């Protein structure tokens, strides 16, 4: 089984430097592409590959790129931004790529920026990822020294500079327009869409924002072709993806698997199943912003489409396992605490609604809830349905609450009826 994204990553070892990366075929795609293949051709390959955004949205990357205006239409700087603000609770895939194979990302940036004809790139890495920042900065300077970045790359006339920006915290920076505001030195409040960043992005210029994992796929797609990439997937999905499992499984970790691998397969065969004495009760399939799935539904292929068909989201593809000895109310309260704290404060329902949800859940958890609170929670989550808040943070927060209210109704009622948490 091929695992292009992680093939160079060896646990507990320093990542490849430029020479080592090149020795295993690194930057070949750049050498064969920049100045040799027309950018529109590169873009076409990515469109054909069917690559979807790996930050959680799954939106076709090629289509995003096609929305970029040409340099003739919009003279001036065009930006290509890498979103390495991985902060979705339960998600640890981008850190693996950043720390494990920095040059893979740099190569991906060069090819992507070339495809959309961007001449300036920022890598926005969350501030807590100290090691990743150091490694990526080092990789950038190595690439610069080797003439892979900077002015007139490989004599092609194409220019690209990369600046690594370390974040200063806050989950909302992962929202692509909030990230742009943060890069402009503003409060990381999301922007209204439209206009999309491709039309009016960083400093008003045409801008593409892509997730780390998305960008890391590009060198392999360009080197091996769209068909190769499509064939990596299973069950109608394309490519591979880094999935992950955390919680009370035997081998929590990240695994590069074909897109479309059944979730059950990953949990049982890769993560080794549940630890002794624990039973799997439910799964948050792709971070804190996805809805619960019960044990009986885990035969689902892990792809954006399959999850969408079930009214859920694959999200970041890193699953959080809820076991039978953890209070589901406490877990949901923990999630809502996170979202309430990380709301940027811009729109009313999110800013003031999430703290209300959090307090209500805490009250239920410690046995001070009322039956009416369950209707209240349903009402508030309705207020934060997709499209009703300014960005996707609050609707994401509601995914676990709404599925939780329906799957764990009896637990909620038991807490309220008994006036205490059965797990404490």
């Amino acid at each position, binding site marked *: 089984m091929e695992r292009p994204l992680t093939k160079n990553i060896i646990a507990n070892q320093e990542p490849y430097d430029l020479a080592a990366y090149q020795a295993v075929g690194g930057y070949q795609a750049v050498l064969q592409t920049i100045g040799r293949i027309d950018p529109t051709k590169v873009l076409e390959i990515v469109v054909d590959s069917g690559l979807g955004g790996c930050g959680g949205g799954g939106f076709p990357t090629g289509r995003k790129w096609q929305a970029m205006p040409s340099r003739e239409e919009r003279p001036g700087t065009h930006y290509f931004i890498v979103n390495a603000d991985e902060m979705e609770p*339960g998600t*640890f895939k*981008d850190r693996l790529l950043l720390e494990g194979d920095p040059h893979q990302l740099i190569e991906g940036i060069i090819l992507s920026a070339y495809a959309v004809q961007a001449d300036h790139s920022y890598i926005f890495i969350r501030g807590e990822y100290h090691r990743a920042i150091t490694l990526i900065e080092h990789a950038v300077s190595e690439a610069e020294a080797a003439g892979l970045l900077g002015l007139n790359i490989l004599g092609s006339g194409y220019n690209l500079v990369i600046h690594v920006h370390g974040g*200063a915290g806050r989950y909302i920076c992962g929202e692509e327009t909030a990230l742009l505001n943060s890069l402009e030195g503003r*409060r990381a409040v999301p922007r209204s869409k439209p206009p999309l960043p491709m039309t009016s992005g960083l400093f008003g210029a045409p801008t593409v924002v892509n997730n780390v994992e998305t960008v890391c796929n590009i060198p392999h797609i360009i080197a091996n072709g769209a068909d190769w990439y499509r064939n990596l997937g299973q069950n109608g999905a394309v490519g591979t993806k880094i999935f992950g499992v955390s919680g009370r499984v035997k081998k*929590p970790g990240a695994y590069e698997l074909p897109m479309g691998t059944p979730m059950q397969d990953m949990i049982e065969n890769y993560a080794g199943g549940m630890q002794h004495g624990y039973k799997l009760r439910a799964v948050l399939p792709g971070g804190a912003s996805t809805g619960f799935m019960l044990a009986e539904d885990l035969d689902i292929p892990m792809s954006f489409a399959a999850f969408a068909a079930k009214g859920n989201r694959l999200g970041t593809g890193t699953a959080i396992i809820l076991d039978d000895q953890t209070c589901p109310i406490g877990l949901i309260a*923990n999630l809502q605490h*996170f979202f309430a704290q990380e709301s940027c404060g811009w729109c009313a329902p999110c800013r003031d609604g999430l703290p209300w949800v959090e307090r209500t859940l805490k009250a239920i958890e410690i046995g001070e809830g009322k039956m009416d609170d369950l209707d209240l929670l349903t009402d508030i989550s309705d207020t934060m349905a997709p499209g009703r808040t300014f960005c996707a943070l609050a609707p994401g927060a509601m995914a676990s609450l709404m599925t939780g209210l329906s799957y764990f109704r009896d637990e909620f009622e038991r807490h309220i009826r008994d006036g205490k948490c059965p797990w404490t």
Partner: protein
Amino acid sequence: MLIAKDMMTTTELYEIAKLVAHYPVARAACIDVLKLVQKNRRYISDDILAEVARILGMSISELDEVATFYNLIYRQPVGETVILLCDSVTCWMMGRNKIAKSIMDNLTIKDGETTADGKYTLLPIVCLGHCDHAPAMLMGQTLVGDLDSTKINKLLPKA
């Protein structure tokens, strides 16, 4: 070693100029610059905030709007080492509250406080992306996972 709270060193001014050069407008570098000067002073005092604002051509309010938005910019003094203990879902599930209690007991501080000797500050943090080794924390710049009380007693022994 700490630098006088309201003075900017020549090295810092040089570094700031380099950071500003990465952006088409000076103010865009403000977060990078705040982080840079914080590194040398642990936190952003009102004086240094005013100084940074002046250098970047921003008003104090404009810069403080940004500074107070981000949780890794400290506007109050913190200890030599900031302990950021993850409080997100997997770590919570895997017992981060017990770890927090061990740390608080060992350092005799509460969450959000700094030890009397100024060595440590304990703060909660969102998911550190180390969920497969939960519970996890950042001690200064070092990521530590698979925490248990033994590990805590070794890293942060009782005074």
